[in-house]
C-alpha cells in the first residue's frame, strides 16, 4: 500500500532526511506536496549548508579549471550528458537563452584577493553622507548604485568598509551595542575595521574590503564605481 510509503516519506521530510524512493500514485501527491511545503517553510530550512557550498565550489573548480582543453575536449563535453545534464541543457536552450559568450574563461575572471581595498577601475568620488552625520564614534551605513558599506569615524579618523559579508554576500547589520557588524545569514561577524571576529565555517573567511573615503566640502565621499 502506498499509504504507508507516503507516511514514511512525510516522516523523512519531517526529520529533514532523504525519503525512500517508491512508486507513488496520483492520490499520494497532495499529501507529499503539503509535507514538502511545510518542511521548507521552517525558518532557515532552505539555507544551504556552508560546507556543501564550499565542497561544490571546489568540485566544480576541479572539473571546469582542469578542462584546459583542446577544442576537441570542449566539443566532447558539450555532447555528453553530465549526470543527465544534456536534457536539462537542451531544455534551458529551448527556454530561449541567448548563448554567445564563453563563461568558463578563467583567464578573464577578475582575481579577487581575500582581503583588499575596493578600488574600481573607473572610480568617481560619490557623496554618501554629510560630514556632520558622521561625528566621532559614529558608524553610518551607505548605499550607492554599486556599493553597500559603512563609514566609520574613529576619533576623527575616517574609514569605510564593504557592508557585504565575504561568505555569501548577505548584507551586514551594524550591531551598535557590541560595536561590530553581524551577518544575518550565517552568524559571521566583523569588526568595524573589517577584521573577521567570528564565523562558523571551516577554513578562513576573508576580511571586509576597505573602500577609499574622504571628506570634501562638508560631504563624506567614497571612491565608487562609475555607473554610466
Amino acid at each position, binding site marked *: 500500500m502506498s499509504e504507508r510509503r507516503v507516511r514514511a516519506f512525510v516522516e523523512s521530510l519531517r526529520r529533514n532526511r532523504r525519503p525512500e524512493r517508491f512508486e507513488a500514485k496520483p492520490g499520494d501527491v497532495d499529501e507529499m506536496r503539503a*509535507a514538502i511545503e511545510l518542511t*521548507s517553510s521552517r525558518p532557515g530550512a532552505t539555507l544551504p549548508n556552508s560546507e556543501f557550498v564550499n565542497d561544490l565550489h571546489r568540485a566544480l573548480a576541479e572539473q571546469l579549471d582542469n578542462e584546459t582543453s583542446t577544442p576537441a575536449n570542449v566539443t566532447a563535453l558539450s555532447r555528453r550528458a553530465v549526470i543527465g545534464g544534456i536534457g*536539462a541543457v537542451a531544455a534551458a536552450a529551448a527556454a530561449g537563452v541567448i548563448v554567445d559568450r564563453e563563461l568558463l574563461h578563467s583567464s578573464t575572471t577578475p582575481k579577487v584577493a581575500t582581503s583588499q581595498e575596493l578600488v574600481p577601475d573607473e572610480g568617481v568620488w560619490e557623496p554618501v553622507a554629510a560630514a556632520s552625520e558622521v561625528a566621532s564614534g559614529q558608524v553610518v551605513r551607505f548605499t550607492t548604485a554599486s556599493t553597500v558599506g559603512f563609514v566609520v569615524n574613529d576619533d576623527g579618523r575616517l574609514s569605510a568598509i564593504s557592508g557585504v559579508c565575504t561568505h555569501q*554576500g548577505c548584507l551586514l547589520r551594524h550591531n551598535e551595542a557590541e560595536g561590530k557588524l553581524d551577518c544575518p545569514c550565517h552568524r559571521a561577524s566583523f569588526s568595524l575595521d573589517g577584521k573577521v571576529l567570528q564565523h562558523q565555517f571551516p577554513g578562513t573567511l576573508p576580511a571586509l574590503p576597505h573602500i577609499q573615503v574622504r571628506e570634501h566640502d562638508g560631504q563624506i565621499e567614497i571612491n565608487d564605481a562609475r555607473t554610466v
Partner: protein
Amino acid sequence: MGDDPPRHSSAAVPGDEPGEKPPHLHSVDADSYSGWREIYLDNVERLYRIIYSHVGNRADAEDLTSEVFQAALKPMRVSASVGEVRAYLLATARTVLAGHWRRYYGLEVTAIDLEKERERMDEPQSESDAPERVSLLLDALPDRYAQILRLRFLESCTLKEAARAMNISVGNAKVLQHRALQRAAAPQGGEA
C-alpha cells in the same frame, strides 16, 4: 559568434590553493557575470532555496543543486545579462527536478513554475518569506488541522507528544495529520 570561443585556462586562481578560501565577494550589481565562479557564488543559495522548497529535504536539495550547476555551467556561453543566466539556471533546475520525480517516484510531485520562481531568484538572499508562507498555509486550515501540523512540522513533536498536547490518542493524531496534509495541499491548486 562564429569565432572560436575563448577557452578557460588552468592558471591558478584564488581559492585553488589548499587551505585558501574561494573569493566570495563579487560584484552583484554588475549587469553580467565574468565567469563561472561568479555565477556560482551569486546563484547557489538562490537556486538551493528554490530546489529545497520543491523537495523538502537537504540531501535531495544538495544533489539536485549540484546536478544543475554541473549540467549548466559546462556548456554555458552566455551573452550574459544576469537575468538570462538566472533564467537558464532555473530552466535547467526545472528539468533536473522533473527527472528526479519521474526517476524515483514515477510521477511529478512538484514542478518549478519558471515565471514565479524567476522573481524569487532576484530576491535578496538574506530575506525569507517562510514565516508568511507557513502562516498562510496554516491559517487556511481548521484549527485542529493547523495545530497538528504546527506541532509535528514546526515544533518537531513526536506523534506521542503531539497526541498528548492535543489530548487525543496516537492513532487519532496519525489520522489527523494525514487528513490535515491532504487538506493543506488542496488550496494550492496543483502546484507547490
